């Protein structure tokens, strides 16, 4: 499988999953959220990843959509 095909399939799969799953959400009561509220389930980067994200921003041309910087704020491009 070529790289572009890999990403096309990945994007299509994630988008289809999101479009299918988000509207079909089942109601979850507070007492049922023991797994959802686990610290590993948080929908964000870990705080220990902060400098790793910065390094990726410096070495790669794209950024954003991950809670990190989108440009500026440093002496980089």
């Amino acid at each position, binding site marked *: 499988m070529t790289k572009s095909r890999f990403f096309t399939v990945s994007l299509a799969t*994630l988008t289809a999953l999101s479009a299918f799953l988000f509207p079909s*959400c089942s109601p979850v009561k507070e007492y049922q959220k023991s797994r959802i509220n686990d610290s*590993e389930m*948080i929908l964000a980067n870990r705080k220990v990843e902060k*400098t790793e994200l910065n390094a990726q921003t410096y070495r790669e041309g794209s950024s954003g959509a991950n809670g990190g910087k989108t440009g*500026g704020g440093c002496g980089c491009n």
Partner: protein
Amino acid sequence: MRKICLTVVGMYLMLLHAFSQVANTDSSGYKSKKLKLDEVNLVSSYYDQTADKSAVMGGRTDYKGNGDVTDLANGLDIKFIGWDPKGRKNSLSAGLGIDYHTAASQAYVDSNGHARNNGTRIYPTLDWSIENGKKGTEFGLGAYYSAEHNYYHSIGLNTSLSKKNHHNGEFSVKLNGYFDRIKMILPSEFIPVDSVKNVLATATVIYVTTASGRTQALTYANGQPVGGNSKPVIPSRARDTYTASFSFAQVINQRMQGSIAMDLVYQSGYLGLPFHRVYLNTGKDTIENLPSQRFKLPIGLRLNYFLGDNIILRMYYRFYVDNWGMVSHTASIEVPVKITPFISISPFYRYYVQKAVNYFAPYEKHTTSDQYYTSNYALGSFSSQSFGAGIRIAPPKGIIAGLNMLEIRYGHYTQTTDLAACYGAGFWTINA
């Protein structure tokens, strides 16, 4: 008759008893609490990179190791929490980051390689937020400042608002602005020695790059030096970045939740770097020249799934496009495995691929007719992979002496540009 009277008296007494309770005024009404230290977070990291095609060297490959970098970063965050009389939670966070780096390419800002090859960056932050639990809303303001050797300052301001709905969903908006002043540090061969530049109406100044790479300003009048070294004044250019971030998170079921995030980014001003060389196909070198505007659009998707009782799948995908012609894809997966309820090991893998901006060309491939040009491989076409693992320890009673949580992470990163790096980071939380 007596029985009736007694009955009536008895009923009257019962009636009095029914209303004898003192009305219970709500003495449990919410009391405000002053801001109190809640937790202290520390993060330290080390980054070690080897590379050959640095932008300072214009993508040349004959100077092996000219892209080598090491970086030691430390950050401290202190968080205070309090409640106001209306029961709203106020959070105030103050942070300070200090990074020290060495960069082999930095020495070649001077054409003889004598410029300084290290630097320190300091960046304090201040954030405040107020959360209304009843309404499910949170509003925040933040400020950021950064200073480093190659720019005078960077000032950041942000505001955010989030709202939860009754279906376990949350929508957030964040507006952010960075206002940078880039020092125009030129490669030494481009600084006109003994040339006169008009800076002030009544004086002239020339700039000389010393062997250490520093630029000094000498005051001239009528073509003759009139005094010793004046305070070095390096010209600067502005670079502004405006971002509007939108995100929506949703609990899907008892084991799964996901989110979608999108940023609208607009940059204007000097968007290159003045010490990045470009070698043309004529063999002559010049300084990279990039457009003064850039629009970026990244869209990210996250999906987390609790598999079984001990395994979690954390998946992320990002699509990115901008008006410079760059398109990129990012896909990553992390699989935390809970060894115990409080200890987890998390292997991860990330794949990234990008298509170059329209203005990129390798060493000696640009022509004199190109309007915009860069040989910075961070803007070129390549793919990268990173993999590693982390460990998280967070027992309910803490680890030792107030240390509440410890997280360590190690990774290895490679690009098809022959750049390779390894990094490690540690994060720990101390509860007050």
